[in-house]
């Protein structure tokens, strides 16, 4: 069966590209392959899998013919890289669709991705780094009856590894651009929207009134006028069944509010979010990153450097309250502080507390006021970034971060609240003939957990094609272990090939606020990606 698929793929690829690409339809796609040869490395606790090899491969093909489109995604895990779920140990065409699209109407049959509002109610998406794909298999319709109304409808089952989950999802969403509809001219924009999602999963157990059907709805407003903008989104989720015990989880609520003030050279953003009983999956028994219906990313700043990401916040969907303030501004060119090129400064403060209450067997019992802030502190981060260009060749970035991370609650264990300060300096120097060198130095200071860390990277680039790096992350506080990596990459247009050798620390890998545990690993990696 698999051979047939592969033969078909080859034939389709070759014939389509040679026969049709110039005249009628177009074939496009992408390919990504990530591989690693593992070795045992007792110093960091890395154990190689049985055949010392892991390989994740994705081939995506889209064929476009006028208003019609069809596509597939073939995935092969031979076997999956360490840290990905073992349920992925398979290969096959997991994603296929046909769609019709014109200016006002799009209909997709098969597998599709979709999102209502910011995703607080519903989001079907893919993230290969997380091994997460909860695309729906069913029907998706997007319709714009006028230029100020847009409607969406979804129906289907979510992808679960190489299969679909048991639960059925159905939903509708609408958005109205009010002022445009009323033909009111001006610099204000008011968009209101609302959505509804129903999840149905059979229940045959003994509990009476056990909710096999869960309803959730959302309402949102997006208003901007001149320099100010306000967005508010509220989600209500009905009673749901618990998986580990035959209990009923009470109604859930999510509130997200965002206010921003922006003008040339200055941006200010306040964000608040409160979550209560908001874990929502299309199958009650789902675990890890399986079958999420809604998307609840960590509402904190996502950092770019490795030590700054050592303690990443992850959302506590059953009960959290907090927010962040973000302030970005430019010191103008040709002023005392701005220098010749201007200086850019970003400040951010994030704070999250647990919602006061108790959680027993996955069921949360609230015990606080709606806006009560008296729960345990989960996370607090104050950080500053300064970007300065000194000359045509030399640029620098400095980051300081003062962090509190409740490791016991977020990851488990008995480390308690970890208080850390992180310092990063990142220097970039352009040499002659398109060559450039970049050096990064990081230091993390803490008395808790594994104490101090030091990290450094040196990167050397030749033109836009070649890039080489050496990096080390060193735990000077407790283990005295070095995590050295070296590697290089070659890029030509949209093709990238990279090689590296070294150690990878165990820990939480978070992308977009969703995390997965990565085990310690050691060995040789190579990757290829291409879009065409």
């Amino acid at each position: 069966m698999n051979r047939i698929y592969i033969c078909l793929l080859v034939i389709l690829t070759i014939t389509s590209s040679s026969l049709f690409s110039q005249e009628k339809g177009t074939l496009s796609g992408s390919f990504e392959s990530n591989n690693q040869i593992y070795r045992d490395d007792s110093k960091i606790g890395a154990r190689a899998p049985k055949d010392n090899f892991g390989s994740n491969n994705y081939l995506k093909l889209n064929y476009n013919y006028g208003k019609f489109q069809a596509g597939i995604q073939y995935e092969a895990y031979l076997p999956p890289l360490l840290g990905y779920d073992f349920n992925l140990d398979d290969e096959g065409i997991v994603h296929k669709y046909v769609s019709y699209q014109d200016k006002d109407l799009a209909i997709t049959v098969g597998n599709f991705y979709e999102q209502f509002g910011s995703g607080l109610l519903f989001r079907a998406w893919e993230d290969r780094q997380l091994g997460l794909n909860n695309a729906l298999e069913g029907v998706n319709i997007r319709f714009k009856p006028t230029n100020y109304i847009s409607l969406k409808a979804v129906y289907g089952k979510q992808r679960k590894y190489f299969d679909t989950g048991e639960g059925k999802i159905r939903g509708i969403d609408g958005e109205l651009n009010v002022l445009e509809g009323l033909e009111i001219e001006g610099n204000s924009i008011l968009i209101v929207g609302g959505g509804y999602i129903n999840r149905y999963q059979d229940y045959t157990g003994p509990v009476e009134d056990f909710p096999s059907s869960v309803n959730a709805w959302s309402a949102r407003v997006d208003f901007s006028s001149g320099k100010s903008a306000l967005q508010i989104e509220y989600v209500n989720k009905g009673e749901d069944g618990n998986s580990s015990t035959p209990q009923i989880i009470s109604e859930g609520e999510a509130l997200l509010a965002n206010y921003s003030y922006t003008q040339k050279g200055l941006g200010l953003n306040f964000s608040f979010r409160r979550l209560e009983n908001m874990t929502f999956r299309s199958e009650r028994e789902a675990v890890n990153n399986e079958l999420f219906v809604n998307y609840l990313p960590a509402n904190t700043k996502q950092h770019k450097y490795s030590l700054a990401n050592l303690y990443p916040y992850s959302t506590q969907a059953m009960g959290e309250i907090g927010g962040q303030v973000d302030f970005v501004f430019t010191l103008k060119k040709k002023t005392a502080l701005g220098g010749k090129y201007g200086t850019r400064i970003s400040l951010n403060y994030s704070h999250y507390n647990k919602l006061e209450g108790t959680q027993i067997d996955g069921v949360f019992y609230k015990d606080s006021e709606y806006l009560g802030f008296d729960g345990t502190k989960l996370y607090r981060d104050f950080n500053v970034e300064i970007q300065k260009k000194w000359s045509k060749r030399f640029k620098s970035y400095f980051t300081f971060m003062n962090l509190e991370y409740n490791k016991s609650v977020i990851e488990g264990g008995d480390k308690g609240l970890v208080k850390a300060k992180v310092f990063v300096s990142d220097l970039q120097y352009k040499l002659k003939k398109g060559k450039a060198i970049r050096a990064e130095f990081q230091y993390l200071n803490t008395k808790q957990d594994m104490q101090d860390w030091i990290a450094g990277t040196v990167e050397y680039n030749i033109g836009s094609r070649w890039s080489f790096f050496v990096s080390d992350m060193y735990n000077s506080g407790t283990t005295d272990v070095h995590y050295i990596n070296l590697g290089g990459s070659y890029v030509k247009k949209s093709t990238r090939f990279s090689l590296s050798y070294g150690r990878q620390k165990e820990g939480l890998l978070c992308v977009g606020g969703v995390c997965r545990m990565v085990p310690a690993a050691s060995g040789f990696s190579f990757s290829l990606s291409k879009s065409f």
Partner: protein
Amino acid sequence: MKKLTLTLLLIGIAIVSTLAQKKMPETAVKTLTGESVNANQFTNDGKPIVISFWATWCKPCLSELSAFNDEYEDWFEETGVKIIAVSIDDARTSARVKSLVLGKDWPFEVYLDSNQDLKRALNIVNVPHTLILNGEGEIVWEHTTYNPGSEEEIIEQVRQLIK
């Protein structure tokens, strides 16, 4: 061994496929004020457009856009090029896009592709990914990743187009 053959075969397929002249698809993205725009409506009055896919958490993306920002006045004067920055930030970070773009005083047209519909339609694997559109809106050049200095190569491609 069988697995390795399969891997190699897949790589082969990817390489065999030829490059077709792509245009921007009819995929909706949002402006910073929340309004929908279809990507096939990106225009610059018959002059080239550079489109950069980026995210607030992507270090090389920010380096690329800040390099474009440094050069933009000169580039615009010389070629009339427009730069569009499509952010793939999702709900996690998309609220920060507007304050970052204005705070950094970037002169680019910025759109949000928060469930990555446009990124997917263009088969982009990772960010940063940069496209160049000629005056007819055809994608004539693309490049993935950013190394300091790559901006020179991009403006050189744009210069070739207006000759």
